[in-house]
Structures are given as structure tokens and as C-alpha cells.
């Protein structure tokens, strides 16, 4: 009810309308409520825009439902009324208007984090993750994300075009695929258009301020993130070179895993787990540090003495989409790159 206002915001020259008793109404983002007139229609019509009476006959009303009680009629639209969007309301042949102004202190959408966060990235980089401050508007979202080169030119056909945005349940983390057809050698887009990024060049990832939050409100500014491209990563992640800093027993100290290379943000958080020798999962939380090259596990309960296992799903990927079982673009004729079908790998360590 923060935005509850009971005023008539707009005056149009409609003599017939204003010869009648003006409407008494209150409104919010989710409803408009009118004082009910006795022996009159229960039908409220709401239209997008401030429409003059002569345009109402051809206008399409907003979808919604009407809830009635003895004194009021309440119209609830199927989607909330928009900020700064003007509406026309018609009841009992009286036309009136309302608009919900965007609050001055509205917290605008912003980009809070970008993954991979390293400033130097392999030329066959496959995915980006953008973490926003609040749930994003998914409508044609990929049209508002682009890459520019050092001259400021936009890279053409760099992003995989998806009709359905890949956004996590909280609505804040967006996955952006670099066109895999261009990043993978010998595919037709790669042959004809070349890889998206060139080794030795600098680029910017731009999130245009046209990108909106779920309330339909724009960001205040474009977001820009600079990075440099280095040589392609054509090696699978090697867990045998990982180093584990083992915590002491009876403490809540962190288990720290040095991966020696940046891992894919979205992949890594769901691909590692700690279990005891009875295969029971040890509860705790994970963090990524040092440009996603260090995994930190903080247990919920103090560590017990004894053997533990770091279980790694073989779908764990590096920045180029190489996982523990295969390279992203392995040569299918090369038997040395035969894919493994192992589901998980294990690194054992002892708390003592």
C-alpha cells in the first residue's frame, strides 16, 4: 500500500465524462479499487495508456479479474501494473486515469559479479555467468549483452542465441554461451566465421542498460568488463595436480583445494562434494576464490578424525568446456582422446 494514492492524475477534455461524478479509487501495483455505485455495472475496464473516450471503443482492455464486496470493486491485473505506465480506467461510463510513479529511491538493477573473473582468458572460452543484484527480466535478454573489441566494434554472432534464457531459480544468475559452433574447431561456423576471440586481443563484455529487472525497470548505466585473450586451453582439467590444504580435526576450519587453473563457475559449484568413508555427505558450504581457481569448503559441523573423500563429478569443466572425461573439441578419429564414461573421480585425504 506504499503507493496508495487517491488522486486524479490527468485531466483530458472529455466534457461528457466530467459532467458525471468523478471516480473514487485507490490503486497499487497489483490492483485498482473503486467505490461501488449502487445499481450499476460491476464491470471495470482498464486500458494501457491514457486513452481519450473516442479511442476506447477500439481499445483492448487489460486482462484481469474483478473481486467485489458491498462497497468496493477491485480489479486485479494478471501482471502487475507497470511503473510510470499510464492507464485508463472506465467504470459506470466514467473515464479516469492513473499512473504509478517510479519511487525516487528505487534500487536499480546492477551487475554484481562476472564469471570468469580473471582478466586473462583462453581464446576458446565457452561460457560467462552474470550475477545481478535482483531478478532479471528474461524477455529477449541476450539482445542486451554484447562483446566489443579494442576499437569499440561489436563482435557479430558471438553469443549463442537462445529464445529461453538460462537463468537460475532465484532469477539472478544468467548463463551466456559463446557460440560453441565458432569456438569448436572445424565446425561450419568456426570455418566460416572464425573463433569469436583472437589471442593477444583485448575485449569488453557489455551489458546494456536497456536490460531490465523483473519490474520492467532499466539499469542506470551500461556495465562493462574488460578482459584479454590468451592462448586456447586444449587440456583437460587434471585433478592429480590439485593440492588440498587439510584442516585440523574438531575444528570448523576450511578445506582448501587449489585447482591450479580457473574452473567454470556454474559447473564447479555443483560438481564437488565431500564424503566420509561410509559415503555419507559432509555438510557445509562452498566458495570460490582467486578467479575460481581455489575451492573452499567450510563444514557445518567440526571435522572428525579419519579418511575423507573429495568426490568430483566428471562433468566438472574448465573455462573452455573441457571436462574430466573429454576435451570439448576432441578429434573423434584420434584414439588417444577416447572418452571416458566414468561418472565421478575421488581424491582421498585424512583429517588427523
Amino acid at each position, binding site marked *: 500500500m506504499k503507493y496508495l494514492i487517491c488522486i486524479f492524475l490527468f485531466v483530458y477534455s472529455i466534457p461528457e465524462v466530467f459532467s458525471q461524478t468523478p471516480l473514487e479509487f485507490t490503486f497499487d501495483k497489483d490492483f485498482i479499487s473503486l467505490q461501488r455505485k449502487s445499481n450499476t455495472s460491476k464491470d471495470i475496464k482498464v*486500458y*494501457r495508456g491514457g486513452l481519450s473516450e473516442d479511442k476506447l471503443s477500439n481499445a*483492448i*482492455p*487489460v*486482462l484481469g479479474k474483478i473481486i467485489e464486496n458491498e462497497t468496493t470493486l477491485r480489479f486485479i*491485473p*494478471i*501482471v502487475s*501494473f*507497470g511503473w510510470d*505506465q499510464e492507464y485508463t480506467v472506465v467504470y459506470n461510463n466514467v473515464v479516469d486515469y492513473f499512473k504509478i510513479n517510479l519511487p525516487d529511491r528505487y534500487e536499480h538493477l546492477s551487475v554484481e559479479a562476472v564469471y570468469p573473473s580473471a582478466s586473462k582468458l583462453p581464446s576458446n572460452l565457452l561460457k560467462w555467468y552474470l550475477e545481478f543484484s535482483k531478478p532479471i*527480466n*528474461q*524477455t*529477449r535478454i541476450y539482445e542486451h549483452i554484447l562483446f566489443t573489441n579494442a576499437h569499440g566494434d561489436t563482435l557479430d*554472432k558471438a553469443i549463442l*542465441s*537462445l*529464445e*529461453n*534464457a*538460462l*537463468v*537460475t*531459480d532465484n532469477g539472478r544468475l544468467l*548463463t551466456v554461451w559463446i557460440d*560453441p*559452433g565458432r569456438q*569448436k*574447431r*572445424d*565446425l*561450419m*561456423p568456426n*570455418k*566460416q*566465421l572464425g573463433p569469436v576471440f583472437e589471442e593477444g586481443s583485448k575485449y569488453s563484455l557489455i551489458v546494456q542498460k536497456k536490460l*531490465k529487472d*523483473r519490474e*520492467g525497470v532499466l539499469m542506470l548505466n551500461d556495465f562493462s568488463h574488460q578482459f584479454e585473450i590468451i592462448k586456447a586451453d586444449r587440456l583437460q582439467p587434471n585433478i592429480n595436480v590439485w593440492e588440498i590444504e587439510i584442516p585440523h580435526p574438531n575444528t570448523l576450519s576450511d578445506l582448501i583445494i587449489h585447482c591450479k587453473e580457473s574452473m*567454470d563457475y*556454474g*559447473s564447479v*559449484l*555443483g560438481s564437488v*562434494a565431500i*564424503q566420509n568413508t561410509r559415503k555419507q555427505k559432509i555438510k557445509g558450504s562452498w566458495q570460490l576464490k582467486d578467479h575460481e581457481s581455489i575451492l573452499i569448503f567450510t563444514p557445518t559441523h567440526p571435522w572428525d578424525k579419519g579418511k575423507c573423500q573429495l*568426490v568430483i*563429478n566428471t*562433468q566438472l569443466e574448465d573455462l573452455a*568446456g573441457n*571436462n574430466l572425461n573429454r576435451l*570439448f*573439441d576432441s*578429434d*573423434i*578419429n584420434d584414439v588417444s582422446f577416447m572418452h571416458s564414461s566414468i*561418472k*565421478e573421480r575421488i581424491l582421498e585425504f585424512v583429517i588427523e
Partner: protein
Amino acid sequence: MKTLITFLIALILSFTVSAVNDDSSLKANFTTGDPGVTSINSMTFGPEGILFIGDSKSAQIIAIDVSKDPKVDNSKVKIDHLDKLIADMLGTTIDQVQITDMAVNPENKNIYISVHHGSGTPVLLRVENNNLKQIGLASISHSKTTIKDPINKEVKDKWDRELRKWAVADMKYTSGKVLLSGLSNKEFASTFRSLDFPFTEKQNYGSLEIYHAAHGKYETHAPIKTFIPTKIKGKSHIVAAYTCTPLVVFPMDDIKPGQNNKGRTVAELGSGNSPLDIIEVKSGETRYLLIANTNRPLMRMDFSHLETFEKSLTQPVTIKGATEGVAYVNMPFVNVQQLDAYGEDGFLMIQRESSGNLTLKHGSSWWIQK
């Protein structure tokens, strides 16, 4: 008297038949209530007016019964400024509206359009007299099932899967199965799923990792963008269009759940392009595939050419913009965003015309006549 008895028996039988139709085996598990639709990414019709909804947000497939929706004459449907109309109905601006799919009920030719509002609210609309009516989903006869995560199923509760999303790209019904293709936000994998319908408690889940080796020597793992189950030389096949734009055929009999199934690439549709929808239409005895694309016009491919093309493309097309394989014709319809069959011999599309007008209209059958 005999006539009266015959009439009464016929009357009783007609009620019996009617009752059976209302509670057919396909709808036996349907209940009326709110199916909890949180997104509509893809739609397709099964038999008996069952509309399947692919809901990526809640990782579920919902079958709703729209067989009782009033039949309307859509033979001359034409709705201009469709995006403005929908924006007006939602009380929002055009840039807040995304049309996610369109499906035509093959039994009565009712047209359904799914829309997402920028807030994430899904809306299902039905065309009626060149206008749109909302289909209420709060209380509807339905059945639904979860799209299970194969990894979650195998290693229950071990991994933290909260970041995993799998978006339904396309969905089709054939012979008691709902087939799905899609893309995960984590792995670039050509995942193809098959669910039994009617849905059962014990879901017969199949995950098919399909790959094709058409592009030189590297596997693509590309996901299927759109596909259609069909008959090639009388046998059941899937014709699939990939994000990297090859058109690939898979014999249904050869597809084994849980295995990598190698398809036969029959055409390249041009780089820098992504297929959007694929349908089958007929003109007399001649069958055609129609393919809508992001950066190419609507394509028409004669089935007889597809059936006689027995090779598999194994070399990449190196000439920019060139195409290869089964011949097709570019039809004079660009920017076709949604496409579905309208009866056996017609097609319906949502097209952004060169004037900027987004229109729902029929494609002229002249274009698919010999």
C-alpha cells in the same frame, strides 16, 4: 416398437461412447486444478485435444485438456500488430512481451499462443475471431510430470544442483511418447529425452545423447534446436535441426536410451543461422518439410529428395553462407518467428514483416503446390 428400441439402444450407446471419450485412457490420470505452470517454453499437441506444455522454470511437462474449448473458424485468421495487442492485454509495453510458442490443435484447428511477460508470468492465449482470449490455468484438467535430472537421479543428494537449469528447446508427441530436446546452462550436450504418456509414477526416463560427426573430425555435442518425428520410406524417424544448422535424421528404431546415437547429416542450412521451428505439410501426395530460421527465409524441402538422399555429409562446407546436401527452396517469408501446421496442407506463422508489423497469418497453400 422395434424402431423405438433401436433408437433407445442407439441413444444409450451414444452416451456410453461419449462417456468413454470424456474419460479416455489418455486422460484417465487427469485431475482438475492448478497445474502450477511457471513458464511456457514449448507447446505441442497430442491426440484428443491434449496440449503439452514444456515448463523449464519448474522442470516439468504438463498435459492440459483443451478439447472442450469452443471450436472457431480460423481459416481466415489474420492478426496484425500481434505484439501490441498482447501488450495491451497485459497492460505493459511491447518490449516486455515475448511470444514463446504457437500450437494448432490438429483436431479442431484452434490456435494457441504462449507468452512470457518480463516479470516472468506465463500467459496462454487462444485465437478467437481474430482476437485473443486468455486460457485460465488456475483450474484446468491436467496431468504432469517432472523432467528429471539424470545426474540427480543417479547420485541422489550428493551434488548441489541448485545452479542447474535445463531449458526445453522443442517438444513433440508421437505414439505414446513426449520427446524433448533442450540445453543446460552447464554442459553443452545434445540431450534428448523421451517420456511415456500417460505419465506414470514410475517415469520411464530415457536420456539420449545424440552426436553427429558431420563437421569434419570434431564432435559437436550441439543440442537439437527443433525436431519432428516423421516417416522416411515408411519408417519412423526423427528429423532434427541443430544450433549449428545441420539437418540430421535418426531412425527411431536405432535410438537406444542412455547411448550415444549417431545421426546422418543430410543438409547444411547455412552458418550464422539457427533453426526455430520445423513442420511437415502435404500437398496431394507430396510431403514437405518447412523450416523457420533466425537468419534465413522459411525453407521448403521435398520429402522425396530427403528420402532419396542416402549419403551423410562428412565434410564441412567451407564457402561462406553456402549450403550442402538435400536441396531446398527459400520461400518468400523472412523473419518467421513461429510456425505450425494448419491441417495437413496448410501452415500458420507469426512473422515480423518488413514494415515492422508482427502478424499472425496463414501461409498461402500456393507455395506448397506442385
